[in-house]
């Protein structure tokens, strides 16, 4: 059982959690993730670790999209998460590359942020590009600003920063200076579009894949993605891969595999959210009695 010590919204439906897990806090590196489960009948979902602190806490930033993330976002400090396991996956590759463009689309910014920190600490010139649908949905602008030599913000509706897409901003940066590496994390169409911008120029581009997982240890193979024509497990071989080798079509198709079930699950949850909140609290209480 993992107590939540802090919970606050960063944007509508986007919530930051700090939770106690000394084992994970001690081991985690940028780019790694945890798998969580909220109650005895809950599903297991992966969430990237946004940070950790010396007090034995880790930070997760969660966008409420499906049933489990929306349920999680109703929890507050003082509640607990039943199961948290990690850190899983390979850490981001961090060395002195030169100039690195870090692109965060939507809540993908939370996943890109710890790697941006590490790249900055490794001495890279870091250029950040944050994309959001509108001003309200923009997150971590101040934090990213602190580790980026230059930060560009774009919004789809022009309500803040530049009006337009991250790819336009990226093309401008590339036209203006030599870029050695790009890290792009966000919705699949965004990552695919970034890959197409950098491919003709041969700029190494890394993406973090959000495929569907169960155990997160390479045991089930459900998260398999096609990379350079071969099946890779996002949970143990990834989650980061060379964007120019990823088959984004297969990723999108596999991510849509349970769309009907996910919709049904969300509908059932929203009809009676208290039922699941009760289950979260009961499971955690039971767990206190018999760990």
């Amino acid at each position: 059982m993992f107590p939540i010590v802090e919970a606050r919204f960063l944007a509508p439906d986007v919530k930051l959690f700090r939770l106690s897990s000394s084992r994970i806090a001690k081991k985690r590196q940028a780019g790694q993730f945890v798998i969580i489960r909220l109650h005895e009948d809950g599903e297991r979902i992966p969430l990237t670790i946004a940070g950790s602190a010396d007090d034995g806490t880790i930070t997760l930033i969660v966008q409420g999209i499906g049933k489990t993330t929306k349920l999680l976002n109703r929890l507050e400090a003082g509640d607990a998460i039943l199961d948290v396991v990690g850190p899983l996956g390979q850490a981001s590759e961090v060395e002195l590359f030169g100039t690195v463009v870090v692109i965060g689309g939507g809540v993908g910014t939370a996943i890109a942020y710890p790697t941006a920190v590490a790249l900055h600490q490794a001495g890279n010139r870091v250029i950040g590009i944050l994309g959001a649908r509108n001003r309200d949905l923009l997150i971590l602008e101040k934090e990213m600003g602190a580790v980026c030599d230059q930060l560009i913000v774009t919004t789809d509706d022009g309500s803040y920063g530049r009006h337009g897409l991250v790819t336009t901003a990226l093309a401008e940066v590339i036209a203006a200076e030599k870029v050695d590496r790009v890290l792009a994390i966000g919705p699949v169409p965004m990552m695919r579009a970034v890959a197409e911008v950098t491919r003709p120029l041969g700029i190494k581009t890394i993406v973090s894949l959000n495929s569907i997982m169960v155990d997160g240890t390479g045991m089930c193979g459900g998260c398999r993605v096609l990379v350079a024509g071969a099946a890779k497990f996002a949970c143990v071989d990834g989650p980061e891969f060379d964007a120019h080798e990823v088959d984004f079509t297969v990723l999108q198709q596999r991510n849509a595999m349970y769309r009907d079930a996910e919709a049904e699950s969300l509908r059932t949850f929203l009809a009676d959210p208290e039922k699941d909140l009760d289950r979260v609290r009961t499971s955690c209480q039971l767990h206190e009695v018999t760990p």
Partner: protein
Amino acid sequence: MTNPYSPKERMKLPRLPMPERDPAVRGHDFGEVNLGFEPDVAREESLRCLECAKPTCNHGCPVGVKVKEFVALIEAGDYLAAAAKIREDNALPAVTGRVCPQEDQCEGACLLGKRGKPLAIGHLERFVADWEREAGVVGLPVNAPATGKKVAIVGSGPAGLAAAGDLIQRGHEVRVFEALHEIGGVLLYGIPEFRLPKEIVRQDVDGLRRMGVQFETNVVVGKTVTLDELMGEEGYDAVFVATGAGLPRFLGIPGEHLCGVYSANEFLTRVNLMKAYRFPESDEPVYDCRDKVVAVVGGGNTALDSIRTALRLGAREAFLIYRRSAGEMPARAEEVHHAKDEGIQFLTLTNPVELLGDDRARLRAARCVKMELGDPDASGRRQSTPIPGSEFEVPLDVIIIAVGTGANPIIQSTTPDLQTNRRGYIAADPETLRTSKPGVFAGGDIVTGAATVILAMGAGRKAARSMHEYLVSGAWEGAAAGNGGLRVLG
């Protein structure tokens, strides 16, 4: 009480059958297939035991259960003492009474079997465990005085739990680390509810907890904590690595990325551990099998577990595709018989060569080829080869790949001084289960490749004996060195 029958009369008593639920009913739910013995039936069956002066049944058991002694306690009506007697050698009596291939083990060695049918040892073992559960009591053996030594066990499957049961009895402090959120390993995620109810696993785990074993879930050793950290700052004197065969094999044919293609590990984990058969009451979904055509590829127990699970999820038609003939199937005879009764169709001498999808990348068919058997190879098993021009399509909505597993590399990759063989399994001395790393032992599927629950438990017991010797003597000698210490099956 003394046995009213003479040995000669006992030979003539019929073996009492295990009551099963009607295939037409059980094929549609996840309730258990076998129903278990009532006390009067169990006692009647126990009277068939010849009480051999030099019993052979216990030698047939990979963990050496004292069969004659526990059967005598059933005959005497002292079921709690019978349970304690079994638990001296077997930490999981409720489990093994259900999933062991007794016909090849204790019952295969039973003298009664020479003339007629062997004593129903498995059913009697199960009876004792069922009786405990219903009575709400646990027959526990007595632990030796505390030694002050700390042992970590990595993995809570059958090998880890068996080792835990022995090491706690020898007075050591034992903590079991599990990567998933619940204790039991393959017993929970792999073996389906209808063959091994999860409640039964919890019962045996609870028995171990009462014996003093500590458990910690959500720890992926190699990621959350390394072996070196366990033996360093966490102060463990010895570690047993029993992580199982946690890496699914695929066929390596085109189309395996399609939606509706599962590894058996994933399909079974979703349905068993995550209870997807109760969706949406449980959150984790599985591909909707209702009124669909489902096939499994493979001929082992896991293949049968997978396809019988699909049937229970509502599959209209359920096929088992196996490249050799029925005679070569490695699955247990009882499971094949259950599957046929339930309506599983067997496509033997058939192998998929390509999986075909629709425009949304959902599986629609498997292109298969007919196979023929050649001569036996070095292992004695007849190899199969494709018949040219025999390709045909099987329309399918879901396919489950159950062609075996490999070694999960997480621990090996974060423990540089832990030697592995060329297939990635941990190298361990076959007798002592010592690895190349002092204080670290390994056993079960992570050493041998995929085997059975009871063989893993046998490895767990062997490790416990060897670890106890090491903990008492403190001497690390004759450690496994590279290929010399390998045991790799098939």
